[in-house]
């Protein structure tokens, strides 16, 4: 455990001194590689196919590896293994060798620090100071040294918070920076980031990226980063490694080469490469030209109308007011805006899951079809064919024990014939690339697969309106393209789509019109409704791109 012990003399030097820990550590163990994987592989218990296999990878001190690969290629599994949290024999079966600075990864506790995707899952202690101190405590760092490290780590990620501040009050970006500080305070030799910005809005993502950039610059730390937002993270990388889902690596190269001559090949394999997003989409699927739906949206009566609508998760606490919108068959409406603007609450309200706080929300005759004009009063079964909802956190809507059953829940509730249900489920499994996982638990899927499955559950009953909360989070290029193609297809069939999203490419690809919400009434104050003029600084700009 020599690597975990750092003398207290370098306290003033911040995190840096330890992130490139005493060269003595490396010399003592004789390890020249921070990461050394030799034919390494891992098969999760209960799965037939290995998550990772035949991996050879050596990472030298100070390298910053951007680890890419299609969804489900085992990126997160590799990071968990490097962090020593993959578990023991009952959790799965390992092959080959995986060393951190010459020590077996599962024995090298505290040598590699891991920041995970979900900000809430990483807040371990109730207070900000305690949370950062948690790692050093576990590594038995002396008390005075702990607080020096806490201070240095929080400064390194740009957090200046009262140590007694409660962690649950922080924003998503702050939580992720605090998680990073908690890892830095352990002075790891290797920094592991598993999609640290996947759950954040663009502002939060930039905040976290900048904190990581500052830490890497100050410390010269070794890092392995998994991220789908490649444009954001590319400038930090000194090396790009692409895992092959079939085993081994697709590429191990410089960022210049990966974006340059290898870019086309990588994009075709479903890997995000900067600037090749659109190219990847149109190479793998054929999306109908935006706005060429067979149904003329304007001619039809609206399916759903909102006038002066206020939305709230809890009665009496509106998070957004004065919302005006018409939703017609075959059109796509994108709801955008900063965190806390009430986007998800509006989505749940439009989906008939929350009653409006005030104002009008009414379904047209075409949508209501005898169920009444108030969606929140509809019976649960009546919702199935009218509005389908995909939640922000897919895990919150999983109710079955297998992927196949999950897709069949809706059609079964509608008492559809057995063979029709089977056909619909099989079709969706194919379309969503989930067929090989039909018998797996929904909770065991990768992040991108979970999201595709949740979209599938909503589509299974062919609703007239599809409401999606961040449908493209965590998707690889192929998954993204297929999702866009699928949404475009249901739109062309006359389904209206409402998508809460930060993904501008999605908005462009679907030819969506945009409803931009400003920060909630608490922050903006007063009436937030403004005419549709594109005034950039307005509290709420109702940018209606589709109509003049």
């Amino acid at each position, binding site marked *: *455990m020599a690597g*975990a012990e750092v003398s207290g003399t370098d306290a003033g030097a911040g995190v840096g001194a330890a992130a490139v820990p005493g060269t003595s550590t490396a010399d003592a163990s004789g390890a020249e590689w921070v990461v050394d994987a030799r034919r390494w592989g891992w098969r999760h218990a209960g799965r037939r196919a290995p998550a990772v296999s035949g991996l050879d990878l050596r990472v030298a001190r100070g390298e910053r590896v951007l680890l890419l690969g299609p969804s489900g290629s085992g990126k997160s599994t590799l990071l*968990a293994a490097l*962090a*020593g*949290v993959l578990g023991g024999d009952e959790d799965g079966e390992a092959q080959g060798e995986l060393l951190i600075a010459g020590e077996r990864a599962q024995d090298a506790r*505290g040598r590699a*620090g891991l920041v*995970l995707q*979900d900000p*809430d*899952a*990483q*807040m*371990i*202690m*109730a207070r900000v*100071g*305690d949370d950062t101190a*948690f*790692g*050093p*405590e*576990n*590594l*038995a*760092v*002396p*008390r005075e040294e*702990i*607080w020096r490290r*806490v201070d240095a780590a929080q400064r390194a990620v740009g957090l200046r918070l009262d140590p007694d501040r409660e962690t*649950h009050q922080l924003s998503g970006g702050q939580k992720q920076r605090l*998680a990073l500080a*908690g*890892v830095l305070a*352990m002075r790891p030799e290797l920094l592991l980031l598993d999609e640290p910005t996947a759950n954040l809005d663009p502002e939060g993502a930039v905040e976290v990226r900048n904190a990581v950039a500052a830490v890497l610059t100050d410390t010269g730390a070794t890092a392995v980063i998994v991220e789908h937002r490649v444009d954001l993270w590319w400038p930090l990388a000194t090396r790009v490694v692409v895992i092959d889902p079939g085993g081994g690596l697709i590429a191990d190269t410089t960022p210049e080469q990966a974006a340059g001559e290898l870019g086309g090949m990588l994009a075709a394999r479903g890997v995000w490469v900067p600037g090749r997003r659109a190219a990847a989409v149109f190479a793998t699927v054929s999306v109908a030209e935006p706005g060429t739906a067979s149904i003329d949206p304007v001619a039809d009566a609206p399916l759903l109308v909102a006038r002066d609508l206020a939305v709230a998760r809890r009665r009496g606490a509106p998070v957004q007011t004065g919302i005006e919108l018409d939703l017609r068959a075959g059109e796509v409406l994108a709801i955008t805006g900063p965190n806390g603007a009430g986007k998800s609450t509006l989505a*749940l309200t439009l989906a008939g*899951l*929350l009653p409006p706080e005030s104002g009008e929300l009414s379904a047209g005759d075409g949508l209501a079809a005898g169920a009444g004009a108030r969606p929140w009063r509809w*019976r*649960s*079964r009546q*919702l*199935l064919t009218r509005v389908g*909802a995909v*939640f922000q*956190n897919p*895990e*919150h*809507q*999983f*109710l079955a024990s297998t992927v196949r059953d999950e897709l069949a*829940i*809706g059609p079964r*509730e*509608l008492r559809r014939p057995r063979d029709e249900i089977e056909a619909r489920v099989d079709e969706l499994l194919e379309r969503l690339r989930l067929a090989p996982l039909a018998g797996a638990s929904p*909770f065991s899927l990768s992040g991108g697969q979970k999201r595709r499955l949740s979209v599938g559950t*909503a589509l299974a*009953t062919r609703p007239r309106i599809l409401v999606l909360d961040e449908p493209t989070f965590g998707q690889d290029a192929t998954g993204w393209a297929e999702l866009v193609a699928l949404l475009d297809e249901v739109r062309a069939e006359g389904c209206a789509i409402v998508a809460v999203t930060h993904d501008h490419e999605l908005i462009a690809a679907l030819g969506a019109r945009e409803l931009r919400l400003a920060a909630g009434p608490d922050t903006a104050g007063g009436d937030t409704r403004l005419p549709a003029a594109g005034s950039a600084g307005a509290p709420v700009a109702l940018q209606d791109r589709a109509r003049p």
Partner: protein
Amino acid sequence: MSAIAARVAAVNPVARLLASVPLVLGLVFTIDPVSAGVALALELLLMPLTGIGWRRFWRVTRIVWIVAPLGAVTILLYGQASGAVLFSWAVVHVTEGSVLLAIASLLRVLAIALPAVVLFAGVDPTDLADGLGQVLRLPQRFVIGALAGLRMLALLHDDWRAITLARRARGLGDHRGPGALVRQCFGLLVLALRRGGLLATAMEARGFGGDTPRTWARPSRFGRAEVALIGVGALVAAVAVTAAVVTGSWRFIGG
């Protein structure tokens, strides 16, 4: 007085826990009105020293004032009959003995519960965990694990709401009754286990769960103030028991 109140407020949660132990031990074996009455009187005299205002006192002890009389009424109506019968109807026998018993048990519940609730109101779980781990030296994995798990309890309510919305969105919201409730509870359990698993991974990633002993970022102090508080608890118990024995009203439970 405010200086004392400040000292009391800063007393280690472990001492707050231990201060009620002599009271419980002293009062739990006897069932007489004198010991409990004396203890309660002393406690109410000492209460202002804790710096708790009356408004806050009523708020945190509300549940005690509801539960204690309910228990007393039950004993009054159905308790062991002895002495003259004052009132009788069906299985209800109110006797002189059951009146005394009811008063004694009312005083007893108040004498044990009030100081415990007041001393323990507003104890920060983190401070308690620090104390349990460092002062009482309970197993560290257990203490820290319980502390981290405790924070997750707050999320259960959010999860329940999310599952309710999910069931409605997925077409299962019309099912009511015990079956649907059981399934929804099961869903909650699945989510809670899932959260627990993620939390465990996050904690392990920060070096938790190793065999080496850990250090504590904040010392949990146990000094004169802590000893004094426990001493006060012991003194109250001693005076109460002595008073009961001297007046001859000491009665062992079941005796």
